[in-house]
């Protein structure tokens, strides 16, 4: 514990580094997956191609990706940007399927009625399909957030400072407390981001709670009394 108290500044700095490395990929993967997922959901042909391709992306092992990326995008071998790009690719791989499934989950009757009353394709997407696929998108984003935070620790190996640096450093110098701190802090950060997403979902998707409240009401209704 003493190690933690003596190194609070370091832990805090690495936590911030970790956030800077993991938050942009989470946002970027959502933004990039949105049109791809839409396209996958829209046409049968594109669905097969896009979902297979994004599935394959996730299968790329991370170390070769870190080596190949700089050559492909022209960054230096030790640039943190490599990590951000790699994490975004993994995020997109997960998120494209989620977006496609989310859009497919929107009630066909609701969509037909939206078209019937005069939503254009564009307004229909932003005002009907996207918000209604919100619960599915949120579930997917939570997985992406947690997986991104955990993957970002790998950055330590390729020179991007993160909470992962605490355990590489701890290993090298034989400080067990530092290793454990790195692991615990990573888990806590993942939980924190997850909680933030859940809170954001509560604000953005208020109607999902309304439905639950109705169901809860029904459960709370007293049973019919039976006189013996």
């Amino acid at each position: 514990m003493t190690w933690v108290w003596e190194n609070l500044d370091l832990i805090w700095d690495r936590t911030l580094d970790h956030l800077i490395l993991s938050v942009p990929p989470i946002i970027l993967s959502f933004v990039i997956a949105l049109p791809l997922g839409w396209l996958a959901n829209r046409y049968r042909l594109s669905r097969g191609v896009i979902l297979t391709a994004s599935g394959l992306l996730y299968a790329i092992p991370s170390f070769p990706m870190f080596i190949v990326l700089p050559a492909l995008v022209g960054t230096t071998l030790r640039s943190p940007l490599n990590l951000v790009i790699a994490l975004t690719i993994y995020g997109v791989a997960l998120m494209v399927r989620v977006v496609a499934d989310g859009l497919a989950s929107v009630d066909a009757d609701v969509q037909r009625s939206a078209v019937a009353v005069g939503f254009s394709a564009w307004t229909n997407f932003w005002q009907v399909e996207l918000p209604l696929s919100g619960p599915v998108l949120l579930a997917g984003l939570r997985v992406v957030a947690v997986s991104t935070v955990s993957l970002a620790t790998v950055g330590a190996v390729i020179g991007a400072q993160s909470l992962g640096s605490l355990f590489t450093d701890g290993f090298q110098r034989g400080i067990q407390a530092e290793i454990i701190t790195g692991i615990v802090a990573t888990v806590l950060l993942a939980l924190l981001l997850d909680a933030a997403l859940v809170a954001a979902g509560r604000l953005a998707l208020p109607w999902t709670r309304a439905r639950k409240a109705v169901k809860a009401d029904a459960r709370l209704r007293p049973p019919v009394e039976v006189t013996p």
Partner: protein
Amino acid sequence: MIEFRSVSKQFPDGTLAVDDFSLTLPSHRTTVLVGSSGSGKTTLLRMINRMVDPTAGSIEIDGVDIASLEPVKLRRSIGYVMQNSGLLPHRKVVDNVATVPLLRGVPRKKARADALAMLDTVGLDRGLADRYPSQLSGGQQQRVGVARGLAVNPNILLMDEPFGAVDPIVRAELQQELIRLQTELGKTVVFVTHDVDEAFLLGDQVVILQEGGRIAQIGSPADILAHPANDFVASFIGADRGKRALHVERHDGRDVLVDSDGRLAGVLVGDSAPGQVGFSR
């Protein structure tokens, strides 16, 4: 006035849903398209707001060929009410009613105020305005659906089996409400149903459809009941049986009406008011 001129619709899979259909729907009247499934009634309704485009023939609204109109704009000028209300589950009642005015660019504040007034019109408590559709009963949702359909004060209101999914008591209530609204508002209503009773109750003009949108008979409910055009119509409306086939029996000096199942339908109470059928249940 809505006019169908030799309209046909063949779907890509080859099904001929509507074959050479012609019909005039007078303004400010309720026309009910009634038929069993496969009669093309919903396809015909959806052609009016270009949800479906005919493969042959044309449809005119007040003399304008709707093929020349932009579909999204056309739809925003026509009220549409469907089964299971079709409300947007993520919007509050008031915002659902304000949907189309907002799409047409009415300022949010005015659209919401108008929407609240519209709730009064369809007999809904304003206290429900901030609820989500899932928090309403089926009948209330359907009323919100009607309010949304009327929100831009359209000339035409399309209703696709709007009361099909609610229980019989609520359905009767909603039907009476629609009759009341229609006497006040005088819209050109196109109503699709498979329920003959509903068709006769609501329709000024009733169109009985056979497969492929073939018209078996057009007329007022009384015309059709009095003179079914053929056996199909007679059997479809049940003129030859059950509660529609009544005969008079003399009982203790009064005339009582008995249906073909032997059920007492009512008593004869003398001359009818014009246009009304003169017996009481």
